[in-house]
């Protein structure tokens, strides 16, 4: 099936087609959902070896200039000041009500900040940053692709090309020469596994991807496997598990708020967020294990023992590594303890489930 003309493509689109990908629209891009091996095999391969994902649809932004760290701290609750050069941090753009506008990665480099935001939010994020940061400090990067290589063998594969990766810790970042290209590489990912995310000049992205795919450990994986992997790892998907009406406290992301930031505030929506830290949230994000075999998808209603609504699933499906359905959602705090019995309304019938600890699989990184 060919893509409607309105969808954008990444620099790896032709390669995906050659690899036999099945495509789907995601955040305005025609993206590979799965390859002929299928989501299950791609998922398992990532957990066992290394999988290559094209995430070039995501927004890459450079922030550079005087006072940009203080300016960025007005938009996020993370402690960016304390972030060391060569380190990366997960943080959030918050709105005036303390809701989450997007989640993002910030890498502090020698002379600038490298920011990666979600594809679905990148236009708004870029405008938001431009509006609140000093003039001329924010630049969207549109000439680089983004490739994630994820799995226990991912770092070994990269080390074969540039051994310096071995000294980079998880959530660290460095510049590497890969395939003769200047790549910005962070040891991070969205699968729960060890791995790297590589920002590569767009003109060399296909050659680099081909080189990586030629390594015996590597197979391509699409957005389908990316979703099942991140769900098992308990990682949030913006627009599903996080949105403008959900605060960092509700989302269980209080750990992303720096200690100094908790005391000082000073970010958009700080009053609402800090008040909630004190008074407690109205709803909380939890892991959920259905007791039967039927997967419970996003928007499945969660009920208590007398069938009163207590929340909703925001991400759910089958966990290939768990070998059973898994989900995440929000419930009222009274029902948030691990092991609490709940009901899930699937096609009109209540199915038993329990609140479960996140992640569903042990983390593969140190």
């Amino acid at each position, binding site marked *: 099936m060919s893509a409607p003309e309105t969808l954008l493509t990444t620099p790896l689109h032709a390669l995906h087609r050659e690899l036999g990908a099945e495509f789907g629209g995601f955040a305005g891009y025609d993206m590979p959902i799965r390859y002929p091996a299928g989501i*299950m095999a791609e998922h398992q391969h990532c957990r066992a070896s290394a999988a290559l994902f094209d995430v070039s649809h995501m927004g890459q932004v450079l922030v550079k200039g005087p006072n940009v760290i203080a300016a960025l701290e007005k938009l996020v609750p993370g402690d960016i000041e304390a972030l060391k050069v060569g380190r990366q941090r997960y943080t959030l753009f918050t709105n005036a009500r303390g809701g989450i506008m997007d989640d993002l990665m910030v890498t502090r480099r020698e002379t600038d900040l490298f920011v990666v935001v979600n594809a679905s939010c990148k236009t708004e994020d870029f405008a938001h940053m431009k509006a609140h940061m000093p003039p001329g400090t924010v630049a969207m990067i549109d000439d680089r692709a983004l490739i994630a290589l994820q799995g226990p063998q991912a770092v070994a594969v990269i080390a074969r090309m540039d051994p310096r990766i071995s000294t980079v810790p998880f959530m660290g970042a460095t510049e590497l020469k890969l395939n003769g290209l200047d790549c910005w590489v962070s040891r991070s990912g969205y699968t729960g596994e060890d791995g790297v995310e590589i920002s590569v000049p767009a003109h060399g992205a296909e050659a680099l991807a081909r080189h990586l795919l030629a390594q015996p450990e590597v197979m391509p994986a699409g957005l389908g496997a990316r979703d099942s992997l991140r769900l098992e790892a308990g990682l949030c998907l913006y627009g599903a598990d996080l949105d403008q009406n959900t605060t960092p406290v509700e989302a269980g992301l209080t750990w992303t708020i720096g200690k100094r930031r908790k005391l000082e505030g000073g970010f958009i929506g700080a009053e609402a967020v800090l008040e909630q830290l004190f008074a407690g949230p109205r709803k909380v994000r939890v892991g959920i294990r259905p007791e039967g075999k039927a997967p419970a998808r996003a928007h499945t209603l969660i009920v208590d023992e007398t069938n009163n609504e207590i929340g909703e699933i925001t991400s759910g499906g089958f966990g290939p590594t768990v070998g059973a359905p898994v989900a995440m959602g929000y419930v009222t705090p009274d029902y948030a303890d691990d092991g609490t019995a709940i009901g899930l309304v699937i096609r009109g019938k209540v199915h038993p489930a329990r609140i479960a600890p996140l992640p569903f699989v042990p983390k593969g990184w140190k």
Partner: protein
Amino acid sequence: MSDVRYTKDHEWIRLEGGIGVVGITDYAQNALGDVVFVEVPEAGKALTAGGEAGVIESVKAASEIYSPVSGEVVEGNAGLDGDPALVNSSPTGDGWIFKVKLSNPDEVGKLMTEAEYRAFVDGLD
């Protein structure tokens, strides 16, 4: 001799006397991807042609199974409970989904023959 007919929703039905065995086609299982759960209809359930008869869940999403004919469910495939991937590995064999006692055998005539279905699928890509 058995006669297999097809729907535009990619179900097949194989007639064995007054009973129809129903499953999804190879094209459908390939489009769905790895099947992880099948909600098969229970014996006794009344079905109408084109009406919902069950649900197939792949890793990716849930999809409805529609009954090719009207009638009463005789049996759901219990084997799919332990091994839903049979729908992928053997969509027209062990991966059948339910058996139905036809209430209006004339409905079968409206379904596609194998040649017609093949032409239909060829037109989709």
